[in-house]
């Protein structure tokens, strides 16, 4: 019996086989396959379930001291160049495998409920399995190039899933934007990988790190070039993990079905960037400047995401900006040279953010009964309120998620976020200050979301408000009204068990998993980096810990208290107050720091204009010269149009005859 790590390659292959089988079925026997919902769902769940079991076996194997396993084969070769591919299983990978399979499995169960009435149920499950397979492949990739391969594949799945409801204009644009912005990051990643390959002759993580060190010492590669290459590679994680300024795609990606937002755009794919930076730790740790850049980018992202989340009225977009902000925390940890802390936050965040997103999906699903399948209405918190009594499981798990992300001990978010802030405090105190401030903002906006959604009175039946929201979003009123008539107002109720079960399951780790990473005895740290964890445990100082932790708990509590006053007790109308006193700040936040506008004006419109101008040149100048030559040589006022039927055949014949004649002539002359 081979050990679990030896057959780890099966983990991505299992869901892939399922996805291929269903995908071929969809192409070849579309209507039949679409009707076979149950068999497809059970089949894919089995594939993913088996992968999950295997992943946990691998994790247990690594926990009990199993050695990392690596298998390679030559994938491509030309001349002296050969490119190995294969798989590697180490503690970092094992943790990610278990995390991704768990959440993917729960999301798949959830989708059975969420997508129950959707025509594309089977297609959705196929995409889910395809995504899981690509993501798992990314995790076990042994070198940068293989990571790039799966990196693109998860991007493709994200494109397909964001654009899943392809009749929606918004989804179409969001899907394209997600792919293109990610390609901007991949542009850097690809150049960086190629450059590192040029400098070191290797794609392997350790090979690159060692090779680059040797190359710099040997003088073949200047230090500035090495730093440039590192930063180019970092562009990939910046796009994928939604770091400033390439974060613009993530909030738009919320156009996709909510289970996808939970799986891809909160828990797993967006974490791939963090994961890659952790993999590249041996490389990045050589250059303090690169670490500084990463930390600064992370801090800006963290602060920006939280500040925009303060004003969001769309439930999912609020959570999306929260994700941006939390990813910023993780990147900050990476920049501080504390990959273990970053990875720990990745894990805890994956659990509670997936739960929050699935909870929001449950809410939206319930709201659609009242306001119809119009995301502008179903996701707007101004139409929610008072859902706690109607949706007890959803509201309770959402509440747990809010406490967890706010960093209240002993829930998961406290331990991981506090560790990052502690690391930042000792490395970059200024960046710590921003992170600290963000912690307060996080608690505030999360409880704002909670109170607006679940407390107060239900506002969903307010037709005037619905109409004004539709008008504000630029949709025509008639269209909206039609849709309202199409969906007579039902009532809000708790979702079915496939949707609530994953919420409950996810609540467990959201509460307890943090205890695995206590700074004085971090089991998580001992798995990933035993030396580092031991050093941390010995140098642990209760006084310092209590001071820092106390401060962050204090600011989080302040945020919660403020939110309670403003949105639960409704003692002060914070929105209006801010808007009247600081109109500039308010518009700045509502406009999302104007980054979307800048992106639209400069890049989208700019590229369109440039393309049009080039086409103009092509048609008028380049082709014009050709046509002009035609006119001159043929002596015709109408150019090539004159040169119609018959002539060209004649011309070709002349050429051909000429050839024969020349051949004959030279033949004679040659004798």
């Amino acid at each position: 019996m081979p050990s679990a790590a030896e057959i780890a390659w099966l983990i991505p292959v299992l869901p892939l086989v399922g996805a291929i089988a269903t995908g071929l079925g969809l192409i070849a026997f579309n209507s039949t396959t679409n009707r076979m919902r149950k068999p497809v769902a059970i089949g894919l769940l089995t594939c993913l379930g088996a992968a999950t079991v295997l992943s946990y076996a691998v994790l247990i194997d690594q926990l009990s001291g199993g050695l990392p396993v690596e298998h390679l084969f030559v994938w491509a070769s030309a001349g002296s160049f050969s490119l190995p591919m294969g798989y590697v299983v180490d503690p970092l990978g094992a943790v990610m495998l278990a995390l991704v399979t768990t959440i993917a499995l729960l999301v798949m169960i959830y989708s059975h409920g969420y997508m129950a009435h959707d025509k594309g149920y089977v297609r959705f499950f196929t995409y889910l399995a395809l995504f899981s397979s690509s993501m798992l492949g990314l995790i076990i990739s042994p070198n940068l190039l293989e990571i790039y391969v799966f990196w693109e594949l998860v991007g493709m799945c994200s494109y397909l899933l964001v654009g899943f409801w392809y009749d929606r204009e918004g989804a179409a644009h969001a899907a394209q934007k997600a792919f293109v912005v990610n390609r901007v990051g991949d542009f850097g990643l690809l150049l960086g990988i190629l450059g590192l390959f040029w400098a070191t002759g290797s794609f392997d993580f350790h090979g690159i790190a060692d090779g680059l060190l040797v190359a710099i010492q040997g003088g073949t590669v200047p230090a500035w070039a090495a730093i440039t290459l590192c930063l180019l590679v970092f562009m990939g994680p910046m796009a994928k993990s939604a770091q400033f300024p390439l974060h613009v795609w993530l909030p738009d990606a919320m156009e996709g079905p909510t289970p996808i937002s939970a799986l891809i755009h909160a828990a797993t794919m967006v974490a791939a960037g963090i994961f890659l930076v952790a993999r590249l730790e041996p490389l990045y740790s050589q250059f303090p400047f690169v670490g500084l850049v990463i930390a600064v980018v992370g801090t800006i992202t963290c602060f920006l995401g939280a500040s925009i989340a303060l004003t969001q009225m769309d439930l999912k977009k609020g959570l999306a900006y929260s994700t941006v902000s939390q990813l910023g925390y993780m990147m900050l940890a990476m920049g501080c040279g504390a990959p273990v802390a970053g990875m720990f936050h990745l894990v805890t965040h994956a659990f509670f953010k997936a739960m929050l997103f699935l909870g929001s999906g449950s809410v939206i699903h319930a709201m659609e009964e009242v306001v119809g399948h119009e995301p502008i209405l179903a996701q707007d918190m101004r139409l929610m309120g008072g859902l706690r009594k109607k949706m007890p499981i959803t509201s309770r798990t959402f509440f747990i998620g809010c406490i967890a992300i706010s960093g209240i001990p002993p829930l998961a978010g406290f331990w991981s976020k506090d560790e990052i802030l502690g690391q930042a405090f000792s490395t970059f105190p200024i960046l710590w200050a921003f992170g600290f401030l963000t912690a307060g903002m996080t608690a505030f906006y999360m409880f704002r979301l909670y109170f607006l959604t679940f407390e107060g009175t239900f506002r969903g039946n307010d037709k005037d408000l619905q109409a004004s929201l539709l008008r504000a979003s630029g949709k025509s009123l008639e269209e909206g009204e039609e849709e309202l008539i199409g969906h007579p107002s039902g009532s809000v109720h708790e979702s079915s068990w496939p949707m609530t079960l994953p919420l409950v399951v996810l609540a467990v780790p959201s509460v307890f998993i943090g205890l695995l990473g206590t700074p004085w005895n971090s089991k998580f740290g001992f798995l990933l980096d035993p030396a580092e964890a031991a050093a941390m445990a010995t140098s642990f100082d209760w006084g310092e810990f209590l001071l820092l932790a106390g401060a962050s708990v204090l600011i989080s509590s302040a945020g919660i208290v403020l939110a309670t006053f403003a949105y639960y007790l409704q003692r002060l109308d914070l929105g209006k107050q801010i808007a009247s006193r600081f109109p500039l700040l308010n518009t700045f936040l509502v406009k999302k720091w104007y980054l979307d506008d800048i992106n639209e004006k400069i890049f989208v419109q700019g590229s369109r204009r440039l393309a049009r101008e080039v086409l103009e040149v092509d048609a008028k100048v380049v082709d014009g010269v050709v046509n002009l030559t035609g006119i001159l040589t043929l002596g015709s006022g109408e150019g090539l149009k004159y040169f119609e039927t018959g002539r060209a055949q004649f011309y070709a014949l002349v050429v051909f005859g000429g050839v024969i004649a020349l051949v004959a002539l030279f033949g004679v002359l040659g004798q």
Partner: protein
Amino acid sequence: MIEIGLLPTFGSVGTLGVDALGNDFPWLSLSIFFPIIGALIVPFVPDEGEGKQVRWFALVIALATFLITVAAYLKGYEPSQEGLQLAERVDWLPDLGLVWAVGADGLSMPLILLTSFITALAVLAAWPVSFKPKLFFFLILAMDGGQIAVFAVQDMLLFFLAWELELLPVYLLLAIWGGKKRQYAATKFIIYTAGSSLFILLAALAMGFFGGGQPNFEFINLAEKSFGTGFQILCYAGLLIAFGVKLPIVPLHTWLPDAHGEATAPVHMLLAGILLKMGGYALLRFNAQLLPEAHTYFAPLLIVLGVVNIIYAALTSFAQRNLKRKIAYSSISHMGFVLIGIGSFSVLGTSGAMLQMISHGLIGASLFFLVGATYDRTHTLQLDEMGGVGQNMRIMFALWTVCSLASLALPGMSGFISELMVFAGFVTDEAYTLPFRVVMASLAAVGVILTPIYLLSMLREIFFGKENVQLTSQNKLVDAEPREIYIIGCLLVPIIGIGLYPRLMTDTYSASIEALVKRDLVAMKSVGRPVPSIMKKGLLTPALFSAPEF
């Protein structure tokens, strides 16, 4: 000047006449003449006028040709050998120095297989053709033989004849079955290609007569002649124009959007799948292999032109509102990678160029077929009039998505690995200075961003959005039929196969590419540097083109 004796053996020297497996069955002549004979029988096939019988006959002939080329590959071709295989040589007109010499090495064999494969699928794609079906299938089959001849002949004069012969079927296919502006497009095509191919004739004659004595145009003899550097440069320039029109290289490309824009789907598949590859093949065969010294002078220009192709064509494609022309420009953009690969002086890059040709042959054919199939339903090619089509044609939408993703070089499909090989080969090779490589690779990588922009915008504008009432009221938007799914399926098998395991394809030609690049490197060593003197005074700083150090 270099001593030819010092060169690594040119492909065929030494192995000519001795077949790899001692098999002297004339496989290649058979695969050239079989479809041509089939074409000559087409007029006598009993048919009721709608093409219902003749199309079956054509399909059988095309499939049989494909099987013959496969048999040739399996029986008489040994991939690990660099030399000429399956060689046949018959004196045709000895007085004129004209011989019937065919053979296949790593440069030819994959393209011969590609030709017969795509042609068979094109015949299947031409199933609905009902206007003058006999003439149509006659031309397609004649073209099949002509195309294989272009890749198989080993004599430059013969090559020129095959090159010219293949123009006539294309011209007629364009002019008779094309769209509204077919006459204009066909005329433009013939003037461009026939005009530029005069350079091939001039170069062939010059090279054949060089050194006096009995003229001889066979590649092996041409390879042994020691042309002067100036002579090489003259020939190279002429050939570059001729093949640059075909590939095409910006700014010699303007015939292509017109021709591709007017062609019907099957012709379109052949144009994109095979005809463009003639340009790339000929650049490798003549410019890089027979004129290695001139190649060291021109290679930097090829790189620059390749980058221009990638960016310029990607931008024009983005702005195009006509679907066919959009994809036509995307073909030009993809051919830029072939140019960079050929100019890279590295085995990896040149291998990548070869793979890019094969890969684009498959992907381009699939996209153009889909364009045709979509046009049959929507009766419009204007993107502004489409939109929301995905509601009615789900499978078509899926096929489009897969092929577009293949075209934008998604890993797991052939386009990714070929572009990656070109990039990696160019960047890691020491033939160019570091700044030149950095600038060119960065610019070429901009294509990585531009390609998804125009391809995904295109998908969005055709398929996404609410159901298109205006279109559905006038046309019946039926979903893809089994024949169409089958054609795309056949094309996707090699696309994904190569993407998953590229050695399936690269192993069939890597020995020949290695020999070719070695020859170029020896020439570069003797010339010293790939610095064209004309470019020293040009816009680009000379530092970009300074020499590699040996």
